[in-house]
């Protein structure tokens, strides 16, 4: 039934999940107004960009059957 068993040796990819946690749970790291992107302060566009990066990490983990 479950054709996609976890692949051996891909488990380490789950460590990538730490990236968004470390990056987002320490606000001093991104609590800046500069550099701006099309007039949007860093604080805002950094967190919007983190959505895309985290989704990609999750997708990679899915593809690699981590």
């Amino acid at each position: 039934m479950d054709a996609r068993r976890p692949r051996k040796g891909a488990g380490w990819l789950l460590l990538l999940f730490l990236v968004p946690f470390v990056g987002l749970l320490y606000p001093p790291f991104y609590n800046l107004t500069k550099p701006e992107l099309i007039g949007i302060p860093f604080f805002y566009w950094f967190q919007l960009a983190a959505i895309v990066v985290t989704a990609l990490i999750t997708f990679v983990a899915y593809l690699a059957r981590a």
Partner: protein
Amino acid sequence: MIDWVALSIFVFFFLLVTVIGFVAARWRRGNLKVLEEWGLAGRKFGTVITWFLMGGDLYTAYTFVAVPGLVYAVGAQGFFAVPYTVLIYPLAFLVLPRFWSICKANGYVTPSDFVEGQTGSKTLALLVALTGIVATMPYIALQMFGIAVSVAQMGINPEIALIVAFVILAAYTYTSGLRAPALIAMVKDGMIFIVLFATIIAIPIALGGFGPIFKAAADKAAATNTFHLILAPSQFAPYATLVLGSALALFLYPHSLTGTLASASPEVVKRNASILPAYSLLLGLLALLGYMALAAKVTPPKAYGANGIVPALIAAQFPSWFAGFSFAAISIGAMVPASIMSIAAANLFTRNIYRPYLRPNYSGSEETTVARVASLAVKLGALLFIFLIPTQFVITLQLLGGIIIIQTLPSVFVGLFTRWFHKWALVAGWIAGMATGIALFIEAHNNSTYTFVIGGHPIGVYSALSSVVINLVVTVLLTPVFNSVPARPRGTEKAAA
């Protein structure tokens, strides 16, 4: 004054959704007398339908109204919804596929079914069920509030509109079960996406780009000390703990798990962990409407405060027909989660309260009848909530809901990975966490963050997080204690268990 153009468009889309809600009963036909069909739509939804269903389920209309409202009112702190709705997905990826598999294999419909199966404790299952129902009620009520804010902007009496919405919602949920919100979610998301792209493109162009929009926010930050363009250092700890605590709590809500269990396989759940963040992007962009309202010098209606800012901005920036379309999108966006939440609460009541305590040995079709009636009762309760209790208090209860629901974390999600915890230690942990969380919440004057003073430094922590730590510590410390107490002999044949 009633805006007839907006109202006509609004009514048209509401009728459309009503028809879809009833037609849904015939969609992917199943025997609706079975609870797994009525309450989980037969666990058959593929990747795309699950995406729409969960999108409508997790990103509720209230969220779309309240997050920009919070950003409008306090600035950067209100943006915590963005990192929060990012971090839920790595967690979901790790936890939910396993949860799905165990529930499917054993025919579990609710998180309480799961807890009873894992721990063998009826008491714990009852606590988890009650926690879920109590945390869900104010959440449903706030969806009704989302509808009220939208219709009031068109000059309609919100109470009459809510009664009409309630009847429609109750009728199609009763008839079609989870199929109704799933099918409606597809229409609703199409509408929400149109509204989003229109607002996020047209309004900044009208206001001269993002520069002037953030300039307006910076000006407000300079003028008041309760509003910040970026976080004040004292907000770092509250921000980070709100993000983590909310992320841990979200998938413990019964409606989140109902959406998860309705999917067809663990693979569908995993795929959705990487495509659902599209809604987080949408929410993040919508949050900026709060600053656009500042730049456009729109003020919210007095009756609703900052939570009325999105409808007010839309009414000010767009022609009537588009405003009507947008309000319909928000209101339909409220009906989808309200429906799923009432189904989730009804499943809990039926499976984990009615069956074990009120009527053991009932038949399968009675099960669904009870769930249908319970879903009506839950919605009626939510409607009375919003009519009889001041809105501010309902919002307070919903904040408290996060602190309450997270107390099921050790039993439900930690319980997925270990059976080491003793069932009575889990009960004790639940009691300790619940008491701590509620006490901190009240001590902080109905605020979800409590400020501890550590070494002379004030540190604000989201009480859901501090209380669940207490819960876990108590559970871990008491497990060896309960294990060392020999089980009371309950007849010789059971002694080995």
